[in-house]
C-alpha cells in the first residue's frame, strides 16, 4: 500500500488491555487548570517505568465544565483496575489537590468505581464536607487557600487499550519531527485517546529484553539508523530517522481512530516532505491481544 508516496508497511501495532479513566480538572484560570493537569500526567509515559500512562485529552470550555471554570480533560491508564485505584488518588492527591484553585471531577460515570475524594477526604482531618447533588457525591476539603472540591469517585473502563503505535520512517531527523508534530496535532482532535510520551512522540522505541540481565526493554536496534550496518536493520537505505507515536485509548475503537488520524496526517505530507514509510511496533503477535493492522486501518 502506498499513500501519497509513503509506503504503508504490511505490519501491525500490538496493543494490550488496560484499565483507564477520565478526569476533568478545572481551575480559576486556564493556566492553573493546565498546570494541574500537566503535573497529574507527568512522569507517566510508560507503565514499565512509571506505573501508569497518562496524558491530556483536551481542553474544556467554561460553559461545558462541571463548575463553569476552564477545564482540562485527562486520561490515566494502568495495567489493572487494582493499580488504577491506587494510582489515581495518589496522583490527584499530590498533583491536583496541591495546585491553586483546582478542582477534580469524574470524567466517566460508567464502569468500576475508582476512588477520588473517597480516599482524599481524610486530608481534611475531620473538617471535610460531603455534599450529594442529584445522586452524585462530592467532597469539599478545606485547604489553606480555600477549599478543594472533588468527586467522590470516578468511573473507569476495563476495555481500555494501551500500546497502539506507529513508526514514521523519514529521510531526515527534521522530516520525521515535522511529520510527528503534524500527526500529534491531528490526533489531539480524537477524543478517548491520549499520547503519553513527551509531546506525544517517542524517539527511543524499544524491543523486549536486552543483552544485560534484568533489562525489561532496550533500544529497538532494528530501527536505529546508526546501527544499520551492525544489526539486522528494518530500515531502507534512505531512512535517516525514525519517530514513534504511542496511543492509549478508552477503547480499541478510540485507539484505531487516533492511529488513523495520525497516519493520515503524515501521509498528507507525503514523500515530498521526506516521509518514506509508516511501520508499527509489535512482538510477533504473541503478547498483546489487540492487533491494529496498518493496511486495514488505512484501507
Amino acid at each position, binding site marked *: 500500500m502506498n499513500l501519497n508516496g509513503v509506503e504503508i508497511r504490511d505490519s501491525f501495532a500490538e496493543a494490550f488491555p488496560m484499565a483507564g479513566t477520565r478526569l476533568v480538572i478545572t481551575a480559576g484560570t486556564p493556566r492553573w487548570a493546565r498546570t494541574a493537569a500537566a503535573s497529574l500526567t507527568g512522569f507517566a509515559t510508560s507503565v514499565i517505568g512509571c506505573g501508569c500512562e497518562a496524558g491530556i485529552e483536551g481542553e474544556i470550555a467554561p460553559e461545558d465544565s462541571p463548575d463553569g471554570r476552564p477545564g482540562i480533560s485527562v486520561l490515566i491508564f494502568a495495567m489493572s483496575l487494582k493499580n488504577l485505584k491506587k494510582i489515581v488518588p495518589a496522583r490527584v492527591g499530590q498533583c491536583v489537590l496541591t495546585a491553586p484553585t483546582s*478542582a477534580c471531577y469524574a470524567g466517566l460515570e460508567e464502569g468500576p468505581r475508582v476512588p477520588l475524594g473517597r480516599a482524599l477526604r481524610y486530608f481534611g482531618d475531620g473538617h471535610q464536607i460531603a455534599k450529594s*447533588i442529584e445522586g452524585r457525591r462530592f467532597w469539599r476539603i478545606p485547604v489553606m487557600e*480555600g477549599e478543594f472540591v472533588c468527586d467522590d469517585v470516578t468511573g473507569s473502563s476495563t476495555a481500555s487499550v494501551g500500546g497502539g503505535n506507529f513508526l514514521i520512517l523519514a529521510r531526515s531527523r527534521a522530516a520525521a519531527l515535522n511529520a510527528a508534530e503534524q500527526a500529534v496535532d491531528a490526533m489531539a482532535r480524537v477524543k478517548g485517546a491520549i499520547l503519553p510520551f513527551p509531546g506525544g512522540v517517542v524517539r527511543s522505541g524499544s524491543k523486549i529484553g536486552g543483552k544485560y540481565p534484568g533489562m525489561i526493554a532496550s533500544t529497538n536496534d532494528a530501527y536505529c539508523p546508526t546501527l544499520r550496518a551492525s544489526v539486522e536493520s528494518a530500515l531502507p537505505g534512505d531512512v535517516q530517522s525514525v519517530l514513534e507515536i504511542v496511543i492509549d485509548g478508552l477503547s480499541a475503537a478510540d485507539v484505531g481512530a487516533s492511529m488513523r488520524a495520525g497516519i493520515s496526517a503524515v501521509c498528507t505530507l507525503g514523500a515530498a516532505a521526506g516521509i518514506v514509510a509508516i511501520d508499527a511496533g509489535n512482538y510477533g503477535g504473541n503478547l498483546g491481544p489487540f492487533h491494529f493492522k496498518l493496511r486495514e486501518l488505512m484501507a
Partner: protein
Amino acid sequence: MSGYELRLRASLAARLDLSGVTPHALAGLSGSEVEHLPLPYGTARVPLGEVFTLMPASDGALLISGDPRMDFVGAGLASGEMMVSGPIGVCAGAQMSGGWLTIEGDAGEGVGSGMSGGRIEVRGQTGARLGGPLPGARTGMTGGTIEIFGDVGPLAGANMRGGLVLIHGDVAEHAARDMIAGTIAIAGTLGPQAGAGMKRGTLLLAREPLLLGPGFGDTGEHDLVALQLLARRIPQLAELLGGGISGRARRHVGDRLAGGQGELLWLY
C-alpha cells in the same frame, strides 16, 4: 398503565388518609377496583368511590382535587406523577422514595417527612416540619428534592439527613434544628433560632441572616467553588438565589454549642 383523576364529590367532613394511593398502586386496577379501595375517613373506612368521582387521565399520572383535611397525599410514592389541585392536609409526600408530587395550593405540616427520593413541588405555603421526621420518628428526609414557592412554617429541615430543599418564601423559626446533612436554600428571610443543634449540612441564604444563635461563628467571606458546582448542577437553585451565583459567600459555622460543623452561607 392507565392514569386516573380523583375528583372530590364534596368538601371533606373528616380527615381522609390517602396513604398508598399512588400511580403504582392503582396501576393494573380496573376502575371498579379503584372505586372499592378502602380509605380511612374519620373513624371509619369508606370506599374511595364514595369520596371521589373517578375519571380517566393520562398514562401513569394521578390527579387529585385537594382538601385541607386530606392527609398523606403521595405518601410512599415511589414512581409516577401525582398532581394535586387545591390545598391539602398533613404529611404530603411522606416517605416518598421516587416520582414527582406537585401540589397547586397550600400544604399542611410534615411535607416530605422522612422522604428518601423523588421530587415534591408545592406552589403555595407549607406548615411546620417540612422535610422533617414523621411523628414519632427521629430522622428527617434523607434524599430527594422539595421545592416550596411560598412561605414555610417552623422546624423546616429539622433532623434532616440529606436531600435538597428549595424555599422561595420566608422561613419561620427553628429551621434546620438538629440537622445532620443535606442542603436548604432560602430566598426569603430566615426565622430566629435557625440551626440550633445543627451537626452538618448547609443553609444557602439569599438574604443576610440577622437572628443567628450564639452557637454560630462567622468565618468571613469566601470564594467557594462548591457553590458554582451546585449552581451548575441544579439550575433551579441558581434561579432561586437570583440567577448568577458567583461563588462568593459569607460563611457562618455551627452549632458550636453542640459541637456541630454545619454552615450557613449568605450569598451576596
